[in-house]
């Protein structure tokens, strides 16, 4: 599948934003985050900038963004519609939580409860985003049990790395707890990704050129001549192929820059404890994690094959 930058930007940015909002609520509810107003302003500002920026980016992917409101209507059947509704709904509790924290300086008790409701909505939104991909039978690299955990794990990881950077910048007492969670989230994301890659590498193809043409009974089916000499929408959108050796290099990048490096930096920061050195380490960890997730999402598209390519020369998809 052609990796559309607007969709990659949307899923990674909004994933990080929702992850950050979720963890702000969880750690506040656990009493581990002081209700510092400037911290709140920066944290919520960053989170909402990521979410809104991501959503706007995905709207520019549309042919008619001015009609995007119509996308909220078919939630009965469409995961994309459900995602839109969930995203809109999420703004309510998270917005209230943000206002209560930043304006009134409170993040415990009732505020925390609203925050946790917001966290649930954030998780639901990421869930719906992942299901858009996981529900497409035409793309077997997405239609499996590891796609959804991948989306959730990377949202949690990027959110945790951002939160860790923020609590270090503010020098909060309980930053070690956030650092520990960040470590776990990086490890989990790497593990989920590894399982995902093992699955898609091993999965046998159900759809083949023979089932696509129905001519398997006559023998092997190969494309003699494409229906057109020039490219068309289908091939531009779904004909993207990445060479195995390039994919291998990029997977290594994800595991190194997107996992090993942030893990090591976060662990080093925990060991150092605090101060400018630790802050620098966790900021680098957040940047590395961000680079890793962008490449991970790019690969998610690049390694996905659509069955329509069976009509254009692919033997299996």
């Amino acid at each position: 599948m052609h990796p559309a930058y607007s969709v990659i930007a949307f899923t990674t940015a909004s994933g990080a934003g929702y992850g950050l909002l979720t963890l702000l609520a969880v750690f506040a509810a656990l009493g581990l985050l002081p209700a510092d107003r400037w911290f709140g302003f920066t944290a919520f500002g960053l989170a909402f900038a990521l979410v809104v920026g991501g959503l706007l980016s995905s709207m520019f992917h549309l042919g008619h963004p001015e009609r995007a409101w119509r996308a909220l209507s078919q939630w009965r059947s469409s995961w994309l519609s459900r995602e839109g509704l969930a995203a809109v709904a999420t703004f309510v509790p998270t917005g209230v939580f943000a206002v209560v924290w930043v304006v009134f300086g409170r993040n415990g008790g009732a505020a925390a409860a609203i925050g946790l409701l917001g966290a649930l909505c954030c998780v639901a939104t990421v869930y719906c985003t992942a299901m858009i991909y996981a529900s497409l039978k035409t793309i077997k690299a997405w239609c499996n049990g590891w796609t959804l955990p991948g989306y959730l794990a990377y949202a949690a990881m990027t959110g945790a790395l951002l939160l860790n950077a923020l609590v270090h910048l503010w020098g909060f007492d309980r930053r070690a707890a956030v650092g520990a969670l960040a470590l776990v989230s990086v490890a989990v994301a790497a593990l989920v990704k590894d399982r995902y890659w093992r699955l898609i590498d091993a999965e046998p193809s159900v759809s083949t050129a023979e089932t696509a043409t129905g001519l398997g009974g006559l023998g092997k089916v190969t494309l003699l001549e494409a229906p057109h000499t020039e490219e068309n929408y289908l091939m531009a959108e779904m004909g993207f192929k990445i060479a195995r050796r390039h994919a291998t290099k990029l997977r290594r990048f994800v595991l190194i820059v997107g996992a090993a490096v942030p893990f090591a930096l976060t662990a080093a920061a925990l060991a150092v404890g605090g101060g400018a050195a630790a802050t620098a380490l966790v900021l680098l960890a957040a940047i590395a994690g961000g680079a890793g997730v962008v490449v991970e999402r790019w690969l998610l598209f690049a390694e996905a094959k659509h069955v329509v390519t069976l009509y254009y020369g692919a033997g299996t998809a």
Partner: protein
Amino acid sequence: MTDLPASPPRRQLGLVIDLDICVGCHACAVTCKEWNSGGHSAPLTDHDPYGAHPTGVWFNRVHAFEVGDGDGNSRTVHFPRSCLHCQDAPCVTVCPTGASYKREEDGIVLVNADTCIGCKLCSWACPYGAREYDQDAGVMKKCTLCVDRIYNDTLPPTSRVPACVSTCPVGARHFGDLGDPDSDVSRLVAARDGFALMPEQDCKPVNRYLPPRPRRAVAEAPALAAPADPEEDGGVLARWVDRILSR
């Protein structure tokens, strides 16, 4: 609505394409492009049509496949591909706005260009590549089964079939109600063992393809008469008798 019709459509209109007869002339593809340059889906945008990298929206494409194991039994099969107007069309259920819908009265799957937002998810959901994005219009377009032709009273009745069906010079395309087991197309499908494409995708396509008929077995080279052996001629008398008797 992007829920599929609550009850199965009264009629399931679709196409039957005969892979035994199709010669790969692309007339159906060209006629479809022409017909849809006016009316419901107009215009079908082309980009850089006379330049170095032309590209554009087409609803019908004719592929050519080589089928066989290369042992003398291989054959070329020309393969027109267009929307199969599936019963469980995934393009309908994934649409977030309701622009993609399946008609209850005849099962035709259409796009409402006034409400489509061009998110392209329907094209991702379609296994057959039936839907294309029109860059200029910003909406998705697809085979309409010539809905603006089959019900068109200003056309003579014999022309009220999809453009691709009426134009096929060899009669490889048929149109009718595949939900009615007694219709001509249904009988044809039953007689020729017509099949659906990629049934494992669970779309329950309506269109059917008729398989190429089995080839005649490659005949043995005709046995040549043994050449006359001049030694065993029988002589002049035998030749003269032969000539007399052969008159």
